[in-house]
């Protein structure tokens, strides 16, 4: 039976809300399939505002992969802003997809992609607006499966009560496997109800179903063990890994929004995974091994994507884009190909390396050389050894010297504050580094209008990293340390005015820390925050630290723990971590060794150009790193039709 569109009812509300265009769909390359022609139907949610969610590559890829399948449809839904939420509640309009404005509750699955933990309260809003019970235990066969994915799903425990299942790792193949299981179960007339479907998913060993695992606690609040409560359910759930990116050239038809969004460009993921081994970096740890897209594959995706979208900019995405084995040829090839077409090229996430200036020069052949961004992450040589970010101050100065010499006017430097073993001195050295950068810039360029912006984020320890055992620095200490740095920079008569200083307070980091390394008990905090009005916690204008602390103060004491227990407490080797039963492929003993190496200030090389250091991923997943060079050339120039 077809499902009725809620659009007529929504339409009456749209004149009263901000930016109504974000709710109407109809984007170029979006897809609406006949409801009755499909037997497995997904709604895919990015739990943030449309302007952030639409460009998300993960959702875009799965949307296309699913819709390409016969008999399967996928539609998108995003968080609605509080102005529309209030009207939807008042008028009984449910959470809807933007494609055909079908109610989310009518689909078989609601797949939610969590890039960050700060989207958790938005999940609860969407569930309640959909009329789906917030807790999984209250759902029936009539409700969609609530499935989480994305990086935050590597520790889904804080939202375990609200989820039916979670997938860790790459989603492309996973969504198709899940689709097949749902289809078979529906075709058999849903034997055993919802539990049987979840059991079939859990049995694969690739889908985590929280309700099939019991968490047992010790008297002191730590976890004693996490144990399957049903035979046939595996002890550990493994992550999905797509090995050949050239077989998955998605998105082929990227969505082109009408509304303004945060990234408006044709993004091509040039490789997945990273083995640089930065110890703070969850993305680098959980996406191993490195898998490159070939230079020809990149060339084709860019060509087709630009034709399909009309975008003016190409972004070459990855965790460290300059590390692609053929990046020089890729950049030069694209710059040559689009020289006449006013297409901009961008290469986010590059490391501090003079080679990158050559690249940056190539990418800005015709354009203006305004700013370059580097991420030394730590202010002192010592702390950079702790985090395994192998950049010396000499490297940095040489790099910026080349940059200024090539006409770049501004350098932006990213750092973290609150790293393990960090002292005030480590952070104060950020100021010295900025001064040296400016001094070098003035010398090389012979001009005084050189700028350096220092941008600082608070460090949050993440699961599946060597720092998963580390104590997080409290918000007060973070703020105090950064205040000292600010005073030092401002007090510098000669260079202070050339240095920009950006940082946010340490409070949101504590909430992120609670959610990152939390366990199932933290779910009660999330629910209390939601019920107290918490929404859009990633947005400064909506985030309320006090609301989180108040909620935690109400619910956590029942369990004998508190926020500090989850954040600023150091864990020991023996402790069972809430996410230990989710297998990222990393060997926990290797992570511990790497943590000990960090404390000893010992660095570890990248396994792409030094021997394997046994992180565990390749043997565990029976894989290997997949890198070039292929020696091939970018697609031949398509001069024929011009």
């Amino acid at each position, binding site marked *: 039976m077809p499902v009725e569109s809620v659009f007529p009812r929504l339409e009456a509300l749209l004149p009263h809300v901000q930016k109504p*265009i974000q709710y109407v769909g*109809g984007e170029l390359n979006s897809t609406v399939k006949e409801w009755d022609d499909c037997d497995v139907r997904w709604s895919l949610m990015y739990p943030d505002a449309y302007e952030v969610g639409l460009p998300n590559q993960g959702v875009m890829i799965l949307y296309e992969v699913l819709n390409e399948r016969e008999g399967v449809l996928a539609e998108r839904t995003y968080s609605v802003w509080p102005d529309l939420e209030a009207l939807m509640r008042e008028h009984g309009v449910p959470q809807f997809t933007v494609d055909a404005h079908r109610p989310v509750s009518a689909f078989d699955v609601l797949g939610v992609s969590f890039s960050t933990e700060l989207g958790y309260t938005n999940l609860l809003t969407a569930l309640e607006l959909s009329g789906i019970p917030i807790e999984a235990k209250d759902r029936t066969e009539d409700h969609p499966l609530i499935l989480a994915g994305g990086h935050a799903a590597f520790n889904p425990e804080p939202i375990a009560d609200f989820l039916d299942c979670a997938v860790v790792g790459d989603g492309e193949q996973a969504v198709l496997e899940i689709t097949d299981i749902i289809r078979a179960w529906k075709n058999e007339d849903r034997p055993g109800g919802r539990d049987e479907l979840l059991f079939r998913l859990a049995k694969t060993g690739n889908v985590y179903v929280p309700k099939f695992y019991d968490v047992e606690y010790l008297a002191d609040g730590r976890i004693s063990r996490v144990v399957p409560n049903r035979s046939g359910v595996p002890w550990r759930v493994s992550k999905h890994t797509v090995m050949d990116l050239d077989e998955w050239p998605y998105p082929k038809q990227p969505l082109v929004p009408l509304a303004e969004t945060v990234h408006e460009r044709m993004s091509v993921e040039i490789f997945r995974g990273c083995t640089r081994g930065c110890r703070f970096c969850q993305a680098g740890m959980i996406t191993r091994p490195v898998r490159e897209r070939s230079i020809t594959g990149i060339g084709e995706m860019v060509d087709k994507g630009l034709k399909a979208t*009309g975008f003016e900019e190409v972004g070459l995405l990855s965790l460290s884009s300059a590390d692609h084995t053929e990046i020089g040829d890729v950049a030069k090839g694209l710059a040559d190909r689009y020289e006449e077409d006013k297409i901009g090229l961008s290469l986010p996430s590059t490391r501090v390396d003079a080679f990158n200036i050559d690249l940056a020069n190539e990418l800005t052949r015709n354009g203006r050389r305004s700013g370059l961004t580097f991420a030394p992450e730590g202010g002192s040589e010592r702390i950079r050894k702790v985090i395994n970010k192998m950049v010396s101050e000499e490297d940095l100065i040489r790099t910026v010297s080349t940059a200024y010499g090539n006409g770049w006017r501004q350098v932006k430097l990213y750092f973290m504050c609150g790293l393990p073993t960090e002292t005030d001195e480590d952070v104060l050295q950020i100021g010295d580094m900025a001064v040296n950068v400016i001094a070098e810039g003035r010398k090389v360029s012979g001009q005084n209008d050189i700028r350096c912006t220092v941008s600082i984020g608070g460090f949050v320890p993440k699961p599946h990293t060597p720092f998963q055992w580390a104590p997080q620095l409290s918000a007060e200490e973070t703020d105090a340390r950064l205040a000292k740095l600010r005073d030092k920079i401002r007090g510098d008569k000669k260079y202070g005015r050339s240095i920009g200083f950006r940082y946010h307070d340490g409070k949101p980091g504590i909430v992120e820390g609670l959610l990152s390394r939390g366990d199932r008990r933290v779910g009660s905090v999330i629910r209390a925050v939601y019920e107290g009005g918490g929404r859009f916690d990633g947005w400064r204008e909506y985030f309320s630290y006090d609301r989180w602390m108040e909620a935690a103060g109400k619910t956590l004491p029942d369990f004998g723990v508190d926020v500090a227990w989850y954040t600023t407490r150091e864990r020991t080797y023996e402790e069972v971590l809430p996410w230990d039963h989710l297998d990222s492929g990393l060997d926990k003993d290797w992570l511990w060794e790497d943590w000990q190496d960090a404390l000893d200030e010992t660095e570890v090389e990248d396994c792409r150009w030094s021997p394997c250091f046994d992180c565990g991923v390749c043997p565990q997943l029976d894989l290997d790193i997949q890198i070039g060079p292929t020696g091939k050339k970018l697609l031949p120039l398509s001069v024929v039709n011009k």
Partner: protein
Amino acid sequence: MQRIRLRYTKRGRLRFTSHRDFQRAFERALRRAEVPMAYSAGFTPHPKVSYANAAPTGTGSEAEYLEIQLTQERDPATLRELLDASLPSGLDVIDAVEARTSGLADRLQASVWELRLDGVEPAEAERAAAAFLAAEEVQVERRTKNGMRAFDARAAVSALEASAAEADRPDGRACAILRLVVRHVTPAVRPDDVLSGLRAAADLAPPVPAAVTRLAQGLLDEETGAVTDPLAPDRDAATAAPSTAAGPRAATVTSGVNPAGAGHGTA
């Protein structure tokens, strides 16, 4: 350098497209359609597009206009089809002519609007329209960047007629249609302002927001109240002097026919 004038729509749900949104979408459509655009000079060159008098966000339109500058000649009809196919459905390009006259913007003197008032009895709408038209002046207020601003909504209105919507409404609810002709003046009087005026002059308060659509823009004939196609002069000029891009039909008469004189696109 060829200039082409286009008429486009904002239909259905895409009427919520703001003008800025439309501009981005249109520039991307130009790229997809590989239109040989002329670009502005400078560090960030922009394709040369002139937009005229865009309808407010949330109102539908059958009659939006813009002009583009090309570096190579193109057949307007083919270009229209290409651009229409490159834009999302609802943002439809429905007419294209080569610019052969100056002053398209000057010809957009007035708009014809349709206001659909669900839940309003046609007779009530008629009474309200009559009261509005009978008034010398109808003061209304609108929130602007600089706070509330009061102005007269009456003088700009050249016609306002009420009628009943077609009777095939499934729910049997009343629905009145207002046809409104407004002169483009400063400060602009928008359909919203006229609705505010109807409330002020005759207590007309529709239970749901009106569905507003611009039906036409163009020169206003003060005698008949008719608003005429602003692309007609270009079309007439083209018939008289076909563009080289339009085909090999010989350029026959070139002098004395084009009233505006300037603006030939055939370089």
